[in-house]
């Protein structure tokens, strides 16, 4: 059973379109992080959200943490080919220090 469900698993869109990736769980997370990973490389941290209802913006990327701290979303505005990659959400359950990862969303932005 996956503790963190990510959707969609695959997403292929045209340059300029908007998209949203979802990360859902039945468990409460003390913090949640979003990463982007290129093939054969390690994940690169994009953002950390800690407070329920928190919204953070990173240029064209908007991250939201659910009020109950059980879900999160990543919205990309006007996607560009450089946004192509594997997007991973990862959370800390309770007092656990290790991250529990979602299965990832493979995003392809076509020029």
């Amino acid at each position: 059973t996956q503790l963190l469900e990510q959707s969609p698993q695959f997403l292929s869109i045209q340059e300029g379109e908007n998209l949203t990736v979802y990360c859902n769980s039945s468990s409460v997370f003390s913090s949640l992080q979003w990463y982007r990973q290129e093939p054969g490389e390690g994940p690169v941290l994009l953002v950390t959200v800690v407070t329920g209802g928190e919204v953070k913006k990173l240029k064209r990327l908007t991250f939201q943490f659910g009020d109950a701290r059980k879900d999160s979303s990543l919205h990309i505005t006007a996607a560009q080919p450089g946004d192509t990659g594997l997007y991973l959400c990862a959370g800390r359950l309770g007092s656990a220090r290790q991250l529990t990862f979602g299965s990832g969303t493979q995003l392809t932005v076509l020029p």
Partner: protein
Amino acid sequence: EAGVTQSPTHLIKTRGQQVTLRCSPISGHTSVYWYQQALGLGLQFLLWYDEGEERNRGNFPPRFSGRQFPNYSSELNVNALELEDSALYLCASSQGQVNTEAFFGQGTRLTVV
């Protein structure tokens, strides 16, 4: 400032052999985490070390082990390699406090033949 570094970047081993992977954390980070990213299975938590002690381990057999040195660098050892151990092994480091951010290295690609 240097990020998390892992060595080697690629490795090919034969089934039954043993392998040691190495990780150097970001300066000032005391916690090191190891993850396995096998094809189609996502990142699975292996081990967490902090201040030289193993603090938690994931659902992996005992042939996966490791240690953390006084300088906070870490090794991951895998004995009796199986074909299913082929994966990208990722190391991450963080500061000692709860909810601090974890930063990953570039990984070691292990292929077992």
